[in-house]
């Protein structure tokens, strides 16, 4: 299994780069407390003055913020928030999308119509505005981000899973299971579901990216979780504290680049593995 994965990565440089980015971010998140040179929330001092707006130096590889916090440490800790939001939301999207896709594809009929109808409604809800309104009416934080991502982004996964299930349903072994008296539920979850999971995981890797972008946008607009140290919150602080007019690139460039890298990793992995799942596209 591992060897097959490694061989796949060698043949697909796109997917290999994506996996490498994920690996780096995972290491950052897991070992943030050991890798970070400073406490990311501590206001550092230079003698009696707050060490604010320090440029890049050997003491602060990425400088400091307007309140004297170490940017590198914040970026490292930000990986934790990113992984947390990304994985939770991606799991939720994939779970909902796969379940509804499975039901619609396998049962067909009115179940299918209801799912199609639901996804039409959901596609009519603007993503960011919906999240903002929800945050305003409840309370801002990661919960709203995860909920919005899960509630609004499942149709893509569901559509693909549905198509896949519809073709699987006609295969001989499903027919055989039906004839031997397997219950519908059993066929769906024991026989069909495992077949579509790789495809679902593929959509999950893209959903991680959307969730992180959503969290970043929400934080940037002031609807993030104020107690979490995320890349989005860092960007919001930088924007609000004149980092742009001061030209403090060391402050606002790294968190955005980190977000970009992580979202890009999802794209690259899905692009690479598309060829694995859909050999027809291999020529492109």
């Amino acid at each position: 299994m591992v060897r097959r994965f490694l061989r796949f990565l060698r043949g697909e440089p796109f997917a290999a780069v994506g996996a490498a980015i994920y690996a780096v971010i995972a290491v950052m998140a897991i070992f943030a407390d050991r890798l970070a040179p400073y406490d990311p929330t501590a206001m550092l001092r230079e003698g009696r003055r707050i060490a604010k707006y320090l440029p890049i130096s050997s003491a602060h590889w990425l400088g400091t913020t307007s309140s004297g916090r170490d940017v590198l440490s914040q970026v490292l800790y930000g990986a934790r928030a990113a992984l947390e939001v990304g994985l939770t939301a991606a799991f939720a999207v994939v779970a909902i999308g796969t379940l509804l896709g499975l039901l619609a594809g396998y049962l067909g009929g009115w179940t299918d119509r209801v799912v199609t109808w639901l996804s039409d409604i959901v596609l009519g809800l603007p993503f960011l505005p919906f999240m903002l309104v929800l945050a305003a009416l409840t309370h801002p934080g990661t919960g709203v981000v995860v909920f919005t991502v899960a509630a609004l982004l499942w149709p893509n996964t569901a559509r693909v899973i549905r198509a896949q299930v519809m073709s699987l349903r006609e295969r001989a072994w499903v027919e055989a299971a039906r004839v031997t008296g397997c219950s519908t539920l059993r066929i769906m979850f024991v026989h069909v579901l495992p077949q579509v999971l790789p495809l679902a995981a593929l959509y999950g890797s893209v959903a991680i990216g959307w969730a992180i972008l959503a969290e970043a946008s929400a934080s940037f607009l002031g609807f993030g979780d104020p107690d979490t140290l995320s890349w989005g919150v860092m960007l919001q602080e930088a924007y609000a504290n004149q980092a742009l007019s001061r030209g403090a690139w060391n402050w606002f460039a790294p968190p955005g680049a980190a977000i970009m890298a992580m979202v890009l990793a999802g794209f690259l992995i899905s692009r690479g593995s598309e060829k694995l799942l859909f050999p027809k596209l291999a020529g492109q």
Partner: protein
Amino acid sequence: MARYALGRLGHLALVMWVVITLTFVLFRLMPGDPTLNFLSPSFSEETRAALLKSFGLDRSMWQQYLIYLGHLARFDLGVSFLQGQPVASLLAAALPNTLMLTVVSICAAYLVGIIAGAFLAFRRGGVVEAVSIPAALATRAAPEFWLGMLLLAGLSFELGWFPTEGAFSPGADPGSFLAQLLSADYWWHLALPALTLMLYLLGLPLLLMRATMLDVLNDEFIVMARMKGLSRWSIVMRHAARNALLPVVTAFALGLGASVGGNVVVESVFAWPGIGRLLVQAVQGADYPLAEGAFILIAAVLVVMNAVADLLYSTLDPRVVRRG
């Protein structure tokens, strides 16, 4: 065809109704006193009473819902708490700015994306492809507002080429929308937000055009066109591009609808006076009538553009009509 279009129209109306109802439920059923959501604490006792009555907030939820629908039908969206003006007129003032930003940037993105994507389909392999495809993916992966921040810091603050915020220089508001369109100052302010959005939107048409073009170029009818001795122009434009454009045009309509809502962050970065910024201000200031109005407007644009995309696809691809 007409029947198909009519069917889509019915579908559109249905989806719009559900979205509107959902909005109503969302704004009324949230925890806390719903009347508080619509009555600013700063209103005088008289205003409160009048508003209470006009919204029917003293009546049952069902009656409130009917009144809400009635108001919507007359574009009466209530009065903004913060600005004290009718929500409808605030939205009407902001909508042209949002549309300008969206239309200019998405048109530029699709123009560049389609040409570059088609070009890349002809130039397989090599450095150009190795660089441009990851680059296109990267612009799609970057947060829009961060792209905006980079451009703002570099082109406005460091180099001073573009203004840093708003739609006009201070004191230069030309008034009417037409006058805006004719003022260079407006376009100068529009440039950077539009560039940001364009960069963000560019990846999709480019990658899509390249992929479908590659698909189409392998099709038998392209080989046949060459056999017929047709000119290269005719082969590429009439046959290859026409077929390859189908999904791209659909994506354009969908993207137009989605980016009106997605503009929220870009408008905030550049303080561009559009619907998105209005929504953010309303939500931040607990200005519920304005937030509700802006949300419904953005959702309406999205729903309509989804339907347009559908209709466009069936007009451009004769094979679809059969199924409809």
